[in-house]
């Protein structure tokens, strides 16, 4: 008895709105899916729900004023955007940051890359039901954020880079803190690896779904872990090395099939490699991880004195001199030349000069006051860095005034999102969740 083919029965396709406010859509993507039963026949992706006009706002503020906006592009690994933008403007100015500053930037952007992959793998695992993995990953991310906070002062929107250098030097004891944080992170990664990699449910959901071929990936301009999962060996840190990446030894993990599982492997591998890069940098950084002040009876900073007084421990502070440290911690004259370019028309003078003498004050005034600031020559420049999702490019056009004329961001997750129909059509509705999780779409970077 020849069974009647299921599709000959007349079933109308259902239009379903996997809309902007949806847990798996990270809140800001609307996918209109044409469903036939469980299979997706066609999708129409609507983005722009988080378009905040980054490029328009960067034309209204000074060169250093754009940096807080760049933090909020890829807000999961903010420091890579800072570094990309600052290197683009430095290329426009024809300056290169000093040795130590490049090492600091590489250290911090690799730490940011680990936090990005932690969040991405954790969130996509949670969307597949593994809520424990999400809790472990966010716990590991907290350790790294404490590290980032110790260096930059903020957890997420750090604005640590400046055109020509970084805001301040690494804090005292940074190396021990990093080693401790990496031990914790590696424990968490080991646990998650045990939980997920051989987990039958996780592997079945991720294997074979969201596949893309090498030719399609290149034609769609996809870069980063998404492209490397298909086996194409392209990493901006290796192809066009910038900062000090040419002096570091690290390999680039490649996948074979280019499905969700390969991307998961690539990201887990890259986290380990990024941590090794940071450890290499800590050894190679000129002037040691940080110049620790000799602990010989340094006067008590004013803040500690006030705390002691409030707690009534008068005897500890009686007769001691309080010193108000004028320098932004880590930006004093001694380290200034190592963390910022020595061009006084670009980089702020050390605080001792600003408070100390009139030249420093005028120099500071000329750089920060409205209508003054950095005035690069007319011209246009494109600088690409390896973001967490792929090649993050900054195209800066300057018309000789103190404001950028045009700042264009090449968002790495934008081409991946444009390839979504290629990834999802023909697959099951349930496969949309792991695929979208491994696309690692970040709203701020996608819609700018």
């Amino acid at each position, binding site marked *: 008895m020849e069974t009647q083919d299921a599709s000959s029965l007349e079933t109308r396709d259902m239009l379903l709105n996997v809309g902007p406010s949806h847990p798996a859509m*990270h809140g800001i993507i609307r996918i209109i899916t044409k469903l036939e039963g469980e299979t997706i026949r066609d999708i129409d992706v609507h983005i722009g729900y*988080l*378009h*905040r*006009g980054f490029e328009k706002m960067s034309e209204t503020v000074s060169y250093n004023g754009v940096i807080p906006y760049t933090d909020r592009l890829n807000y999961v690994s903010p420091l890579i955007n800072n570094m990309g933008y600052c290197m683009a403007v430095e290329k426009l100015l024809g300056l290169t940051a000093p040795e130590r500053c490049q090492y600091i930037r590489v250290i911090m952007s690799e730490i940011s890359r680990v936090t990005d992959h932690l969040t991405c793998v954790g*969130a996509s695992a949670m969307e597949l039901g593994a809520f424990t993995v999400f809790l472990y990953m966010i716990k590991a991310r907290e350790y790294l954020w404490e590290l980032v906070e110790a260096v930059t002062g903020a957890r997420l*929107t750090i604005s640590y880079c400046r055109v020509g250098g970084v805001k301040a030097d690494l804090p005292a004891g940074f190396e021990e803190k990093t080693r401790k944080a990496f031990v914790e992170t590696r424990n968490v990664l080991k646990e998650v690896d045990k939980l997920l990699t051989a987990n039958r449910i996780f592997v079945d959901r991720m294997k074979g779904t969201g596949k893309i071929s090498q030719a399609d990936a290149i034609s769609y301009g996809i870069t980063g872990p998404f492209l490397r999962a298909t086996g194409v060996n392209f990493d901006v840190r290796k192809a066009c090395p910038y900062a000090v990446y040419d002096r570091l030894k690290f390999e680039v993990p490649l996948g074979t099939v280019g499905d969700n599982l390969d991307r998961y492997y690539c990201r887990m591998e890259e986290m380990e490699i990024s941590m090794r890069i940071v450890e290499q940098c800590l050894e190679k950084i000129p002037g040691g991880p940080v110049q620790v002040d000799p602990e010989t009876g340094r006067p008590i900073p004013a803040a500690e004195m006030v705390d002691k007084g409030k707690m009534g421990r008068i005897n500890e502070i009686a007769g001691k001199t309080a010193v108000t440290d004028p320098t932004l911690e880590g930006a004093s004259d001694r380290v200034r030349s190592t963390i910022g370019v020595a061009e006084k028309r670009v980089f702020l003078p050390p605080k001792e000069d600003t408070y100390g003498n009139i030249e420093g004050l005028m120099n500071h005034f000329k750089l920060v006051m409205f209508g003054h600031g950095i005035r690069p020559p007319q011209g246009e420049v494109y600088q690409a860095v390896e973001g967490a999702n792929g090649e993050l490019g900054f195209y800066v056009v300057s018309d000789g005034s103190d404001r950028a004329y045009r700042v264009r961001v090449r968002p790495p997750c934008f081409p991946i999102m444009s390839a979504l129909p290629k990834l999802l059509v023909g697959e099951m509705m349930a496969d949309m969740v792991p695929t979208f999780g491994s696309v690692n779409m970040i*709203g701020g970077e996608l819609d700018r």
Partner: protein
Amino acid sequence: MFGTDNFLTSKLESAIGWARKYSIFQYPFVTACCGMEYMATACSHYDVDRFGAGFPRFSPRQADVLFVVGTISHKMAPVLKKIYDQMTEPKWVVAFGVCTCTGGFYDNYATVMGIDTIIPVDVYIPGCPPRPENVLDGLIKLQDRIQAQHDGKPLARPDPRERSFTV
């Protein structure tokens, strides 16, 4: 419910307030960078579950509090308004992050300058993004509001101020 507020109803009312205060079902309307800080607050390190608000509900029918987390653009505003309307009473709104309170430093053509211009807001949590401690403090303020509302002296909900911007 049972007529004038004698001893029984007022005690029952404040008991309901206590119950609602410590079992907040939140609808996380997450859009932007504050989402990262929301994750940090909801997870094990700062653990919003200690205050009874750990259970996110992604449907407005089952949610009590609408956590608006991250910048709301003009394209997103009708969606936010529709979800707020579809929420069942009693409902409260928490504006999480400065972009939801006043639009933050995105003062341009694309951003809604403060969600209190489109929906009434109960608690404003400033910060870009606010530290998890700020968020927990905002949550405690919300709980005080809920309790006060059931103790017969509801705090005035800040109505959206008429804000005129000089272009």
